[in-house]
C-alpha cells in the first residue's frame, strides 16, 4: 500500500502545472468562452511539441507510452485550471479506444497525427433520447454497396465544430445493448452539420446532424455489432479521468475559498475564524479528500488492469456529488462576491453539469453499482 507518487509522476505534474500557470490564467478561460473555436490553437501546438498530446500513445506512434495514472495527473492539473479545449475528447474519449481496438492501419493512420497535434477528435455518443445507456443510441448505420450510411442526431458532442474526426456510436442492428458499432467519421464530410449548443459554461458542445453520411467499411472501429465493449471501455476510462479533472476543480475551489476566508474580515475578525465557516469547510475537506484518494485508487487500478465496475462508478458518482456541493458551498462562503462574474469561482461552478453528464451521470452509475452489489458474493456468505 503506497499513496505516494513516484518522482517521474511528480515531474509530470509540475511540468503540466507550470505550463498552465504560464499559459492559462483565468482570463484565458473567459476569453475561450467568447472565442468561436473555444480553444487556443497556439497552445494546442505547444502541447504537441511538449509531448502532451502523445502522452498515453504508444512510442511507435510518437507517443510516450504513459499509463492512465500519468494521464490522471495531467488531467487533474487541467481541471484545476479549467483548461478548455479538445484535449479530453481527443486523448481520452478517442485515442485510448483507438489504441486498444484500432486496426494496425487505423493506428498508423491516426495516432501519429494525434500526437503531432494535427488532428482533433471527439466522441459522438448522446442523442435526443438523453439517456446514458446504450438503449438511447438510435442513430442508424445502414450498409449499402459496401458503404455504411449514417443518419440521425448526436447532441452534446464536445468540440465537434473543430473536430477533424468523430468517433460515432451508431446502431447497426436492433437491440438495447447489442447491435452497436463505432465508426470513424471525417469531420469535414458534407453530410454533417454542426451547431453549438448554448450551454451555461459556453464550453462548445454541439449538436451534430448526420444526413446519409457515407463511411467506408474500413472506418469501423473494432467489430461490427460488437461496439458495446468499446463503449464500456470508453465509459470506464472516461469516467475515471473525468473524475480526475473534477478533482482538480474542487481542489482549486476549496483553495480559493480558504484564501478568501482568511483575508475577508467581518466583526473585526477573518470569517475563517468563525466555526460556522470552519465546519462548512471541514465538511468539504472530508468530501474532497475522499474523492482524491478514490480517484487515485481507481486510476491506479485501471493502470494495473484491476479496476472493478463498482470502483469506477463509485468514483464518478462521488465526483459528481462533491463537485456540485463544493461549488455551492464555496459560493456561500464567499458571500455576495462569490456570485459575481469577476470571481473565478463561478467559472468552476458553471462547469459542474457538463462534467456530471460526461460519461454517465449519478443515476446511471448508481444503477451499475446496484447491479454489482446484487451479484457480489460477500465473504460472510461463504461461511453460512
Amino acid at each position, binding site marked *: *500500500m503506497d499513496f505516494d507518487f513516484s518522482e517521474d509522476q511528480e515531474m509530470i505534474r509540475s511540468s503540466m502545472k507550470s505550463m498552465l500557470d504560464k499559459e492559462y490564467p483565468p482570463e484565458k478561460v473567459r476569453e475561450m468562452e467568447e472565442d468561436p473555436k473555444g480553444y487556443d490553437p497556439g497552445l494546442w501546438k505547444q502541447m504537441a511539441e511538449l509531448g502532451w498530446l502523445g502522452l498515453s500513445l504508444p512510442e511507435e506512434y510518437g507517443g510516450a507510452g504513459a499509463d492512465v495514472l500519468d494521464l490522471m495527473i495531467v488531467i487533474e492539473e487541467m481541471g484545476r485550471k479549467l483548461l478548455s479545449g479538445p484535449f479530453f475528447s481527443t486523448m481520452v474519449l478517442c485515442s485510448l479506444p483507438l489504441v486498444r481496438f484500432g486496426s494496425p492501419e487505423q493506428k498508423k493512420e491516426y495516432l501519429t497525427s494525434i500526437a503531432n497535434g494535427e488532428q482533433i477528435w471527439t466522441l459522438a455518443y448522446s442523442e435526443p433520447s438523453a439517456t446514458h445507456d446504450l438503449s438511447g443510441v438510435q442513430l442508424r448505420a445502414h450498409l449499402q454497396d459496401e458503404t455504411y450510411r449514417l443518419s440521425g442526431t448526436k447532441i452534446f458532442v464536445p468540440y465537434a465544430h473543430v473536430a477533424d474526426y468523430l468517433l460515432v456510436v451508431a446502431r447497426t442492428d436492433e437491440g438495447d445493448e447489442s447491435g452497436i458499432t463505432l465508426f470513424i467519421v471525417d469531420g469535414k464530410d458534407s453530410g454533417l452539420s454542426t451547431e453549438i449548443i448554448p450551454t451555461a459554461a459556453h464550453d462548445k458542445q454541439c449538436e451534430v446532424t448526420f444526413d446519409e453520411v457515407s463511411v467506408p467499411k474500413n472506418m469501423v472501429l473494432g467489430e461490427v455489432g460488437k461496439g458495446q465493449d468499446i463503449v464500456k471501455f470508453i465509459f470506464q476510462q472516461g469516467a475515471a479521468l473525468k473524475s480526475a479533472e473534477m478533482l482538480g476543480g474542487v481542489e482549486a475551489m476549496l483553495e480559493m475559498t480558504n484564501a478568501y476566508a482568511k483575508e475577508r474580515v467581518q466583526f473585526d475578525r477573518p470569517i*475563517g475564524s468563525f466555526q460556522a*465557516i470552519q465546519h462548512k469547510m*471541514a*465538511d468539504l475537506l472530508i468530501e474532497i479528500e475522499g474523492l482524491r484518494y478514490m480517484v487515485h485508487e481507481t486510476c491506479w487500478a485501471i493502470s494495473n488492469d484491476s479496476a472493478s465496475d463498482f470502483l469506477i462508478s*463509485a468514483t464518478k458518482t462521488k465526483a459528481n456529488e462533491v463537485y456540485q456541493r463544493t461549488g455551492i458551498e464555496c459560493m456561500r462562503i464567499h458571500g455576495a462576491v462569490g456570485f459575481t462574474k469577476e470571481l473565478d469561482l463561478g467559472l468552476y461552478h458553471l462547469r459542474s453539469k457538463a462534467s456530471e453528464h460526461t460519461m454517465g451521470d449519478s443515476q446511471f452509475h*448508481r*444503477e451499475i453499482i446496484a447491479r454489482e452489489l446484487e451479484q457480489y458474493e460477500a465473504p460472510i456468505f461463504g461461511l453460512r
Partner: protein
Amino acid sequence: MDFQFGDKEEALRKEIREFVKQELPPGWVRNALAEESRDEDWAFTLSISKKLSEKGWLTMAWPKEYGGMGASLWEHLVFREEAGYWGIPGVTMGVGGVDWVGPSLILYGSEEQKKTHLPLIASGEQDGVWCTGYSEPNAGSDFANIGTKAIRDGDGYVVNGQKIWTSAAHRSRWIWLAAVTAPQEPKKHKRISILIVDMKSPGITINPIINYAGYHFFNEVFFDDVKVPAENLVGEENRGWYQLMSSLAHERGSIAPGSCGYNKRMLDELVHYVKETGLINNPRIRHKLADRAIEIEALKVLVYQTIWKMSKGQVPFYEPARDKVFNDYIFERLSMTGMEILGLYSQMDPQSEDEKWKKLKGSFEAMYWLFPGMSIAGGTDEIQKNIIAMFGLELPKS
C-alpha cells in the same frame, strides 16, 4: 503508488477468517457497543480476548519485548478491519487497554509499570481490562477543565472527585485516570497528571448510567479519599495533558479500521436481506444502497491514507478527525437506510431475545439507536471539525 496489500497482510487475513470459522458461532453478528452491557456477552467477549491473546493478535502492534508481535501498521489494520467485519469481540481490553494504555506505558511508564501492566493487558484476562477516566460533569469537550483532584500525601496521592460517561467502568480492573495534581496552577493544561488506579480501591463507587435504549456501558465513578500509591503516576507529574496529546498518535490508527470492516459487514447483510425479500427490485432502495457502498469505499481510502501517513513516520494531525466525522456520517446514513429497508420490523428492541421478531439480529436497530452517542464518544464531531479547521485548513483560531 500501490493500492494492494502485501502477501503478509493477505496471509493474516486468511488466518483470521479461519479463526472466525472456528471460534465464533455461525452467522455471528456483533452489535454496536454490546460487549459490556450484559453479563453473558461480557463473558463471551473475555473468552475471545483470551484466544486472541494466545494467537498473539490482541497486542500485535506492540513491540515484541512488551508482549506484542511488532506487527506493522498494515497488519494491525487488517486485523482490526477483519475483526470489525466478522464482529470479533474483545479486541480492545475494555476502553483503551490495547490502544492507548499499553502504548502510553511503553512511551512514559516506569519499568515497574510496564512489567506489571503490559503482560496483564496482553494476556486477555480480566485483570488486564481498563476503562478511561477523562470526562467529568464539567469537562466534556473542554477536557482540561477537569476537577477531580489527586493530592500528594506522604508516599501516595489521595483522589477525590467524579468521572462520568466512563464506558466499561463496571467491567474494568483498572482506570486510566486524568486528575488535577497542581490545583494552584492557573494554566489548566499544566496541572493534569495521569494515574493508574485499581478499581478495587476502597473509596471508589460505580453508578451505572443506563442509556435511553436500555444499554449499560456508561457509568459514573466517584472517588472518595481513594489512596493511590505514588508509583502509579504515569510519566511526569503535571505533564498529563501533553502525554495524552502525544499518545493520541497511537490511538489514532486503531479505531477507524474496525469501523471500515463493520460498515462493510452491515452493508453486506443488508444486500443479502433485500435480495431475499425482493426489495432489491425497488429502484430507490437500489440507489440508496449504491450510495452507502460509495461512502464505505471513500472511508476505506481515507483510513488507509491515515495509516499510510503514520507508516511513513509522520503524525496525522487532522486525518483521524476527518475519518471519525465521515464514519459517524456513515453510521447515520447506513443505519437509516437499514431501518427503512426493515420497515415495520425496524421497531424491535435490539436487546430482545425473541428471535421471532428481530431481523438481521437487531444489528440495524442497535446501530440506529446508538449512532448519536457514537458521534459524541471520543470527541464530538464539532470538536473534530475544529481540529480539521485548525490543522487541515489552517484557518485562524475561532
